[in-house]
């Protein structure tokens, strides 16, 4: 057995969580409430296969990692694929996505879209605050009108949307 590197530990944790997920699938299937007399073939059968399959392959992955066969990241970008992850940039992206999710039905699509656009752009190095915010809002407004007026897709409305639709 080779010495496990830091990257290897991360991969082990990931494989371990998948193993636990597989066990949970089996547990969920055992305690599943099956309405009586409806199904000829039990709805438990297939999940049993899937759960067992996940357990077997994640156990296999754990063995593979322990034998020193680590993953090569699947990136297409140049640069060192093994460099440690930049958590600050990543959390900004996550904040952008989470912000969109939280704000969408509270403040409407335009605000939510501008927030996710701006935060992700900021994470990737956009630093001209006024210009970036203007572009974010322009992008959000144009998409809003293209989606709702052009494609008849209903999107949550908020301050901005009402401002424009009351005038129309």
């Amino acid at each position, binding site marked *: 057995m080779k010495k496990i590197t830091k990257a290897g530990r991360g991969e082990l944790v990931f494989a371990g969580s998948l193993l636990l997920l597989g066990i949970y699938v089996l547990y969920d299937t055992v305690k599943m409430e099956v309405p009586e007399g409806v199904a000829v073939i039990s709805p438990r059968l297939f999940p049993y296969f899937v759960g067992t399959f996940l357990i077997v392959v994640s156990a296999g992955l754990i063995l593979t990692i322990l034998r020193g066969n680590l993953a090569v990241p699947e990136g*297409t970008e140049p640069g060192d694929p093994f460099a440690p992850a930049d958590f600050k940039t990543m959390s900004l992206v996550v904040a952008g996505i989470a912000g969109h999710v939280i704000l969408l039905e509270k403040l409407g699509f335009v605000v939510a879209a501008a927030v996710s656009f701006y935060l992700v752009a900021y994470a990737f190095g956009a630093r001209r605050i006024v210009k970036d915010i203007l572009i974010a809002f322009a992008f959000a407004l144009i998409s809003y009108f293209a989606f709702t007026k052009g494609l008849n897709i209903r999107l949550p409305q908020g301050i901005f949307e009402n401002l424009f639709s009351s005038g129309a």
Partner: protein
Amino acid sequence: MNSLNLLLDGFATAFTATNLMYGLAGTFLGTLVGVLPGIGPALAIALLLPITMSVAPASALIMFASIYYGAMYGGSTTSILLNTPGESGSVITALEGNKMAKAGRAGAALATAAIGSFVAGTIATLLLAFGAPVLADVAVKIQPAGYLSLMILAFATVGTLLGQSMIRGLISLACGLVIGLVGADLQSGALRLTFGNLNAVDGIETVTVIVAIFALGEVLYLASRHKVDEWAVISVNDKTWMTKSDFKRSWRPWLRGTAIGFPLGVIPAGGSEVPTFLSYAAEKKLSKHKEEFGHGAIEGVAGPEAANNANAAGALVPLLALGLPTSATAAVVLVAFQMYNIQPGPMLLSTEPVIVWGLIASLFIGNALLLLLNLPLIKFWVKLLKIPRPYLYGGITTFALFGAYALNASTFDLQIALAVGALGYFFRRFGMPTTPLIIGLIMGPLAETKFKLALQISNGDYSVLYAGLLTKSIYFILFMVIVGPFVWNFKKKLAIKK
């Protein structure tokens, strides 16, 4: 000549003003999204799925056919000019094409890719038009157990052929199967893996998963790689696209690429990775200019590009005739069908002839439109590559969130998107391919249906699962696919020891 008549009817469907407009819009949008770096055809179609929600089925599917080819073509443009292949099928194109572009022959590389795609696409669509009905006629007789065995074979090949190691592909497949389990069992209504959440009863929205794992996963992964530099886009300023000698060197690779790509699309060979690589290897071997390979040989672009396109059309054969997707892109097209409650399969050609033949006809039209639109518009596509990367990723993220939300107008789908995006990051970080997950997610529930159906017919007798000749031979092939590589490696090891 029944197929021919039906195909002509298909052209009549596709040639109405409305449908032609959708075809044109699809070609344009497909290329537009496909050109954006990091967006492959599967993601391009998934991102564009919501925009056809208010369109009639025939027009929408015609649009998807055009998006399909448009996105493929857009991807090869990016590979040549930027060396960032958006999907595994254009990795090889990037290899030689980018070298050609750097040597000032971007125009020739783009042209041989475009014309090669057109030639391959046209021949392959013809084969599709005449092959799919034949296969469907045979497939009508296949029993549920036979279907199940075909699906398991597809699972196994997609899971084991993709990615760095067999085990990582299978992990991806297993994750897809688990996500596919969530929700109420169709037959009994029993709830599975819903964690008591009412939103999860209808299952996890497939489009949400696809958009999140490709787009959000990719953006998160790029974010984890520190800062990104602006790209060096190679400009196209050639006066001539292809010279006479370029044509002479390209036409054989186009045909050979088609011959390699199409059959490998029909059988579940795990997408376009294998055929493009085989085509590249064949061209390298047959070329009179071997020394140019690795420095921008036109054959190395012409062959793999043709193989990639023929492969995409080939994957539509099992999709239309059997309802089995063999690549991520075909799986997304299956989802598009399901959105309109159309289930591809052997009966589809007889129950929905207008839609299927309209779709096939629009593949021809889309292909021709691409050739007409894209080379003249190349300057416009190059401009897209110059969008500053922060804005590009801000836009992709926001558009992906829109795609995840719009189908069901539900914030629950957005929460799922965030979670699946995180999973997509870990997949990239730990070298797991995403295609098997998509295949497992989409085909898992179909496989369960066939499984139950087979057991119902046999009254719970399990021997039905491996009884017939078809199931037996398919499980034999499966055995060879899985055990074969081990035997091969073992023999090689023995040989080295000697």
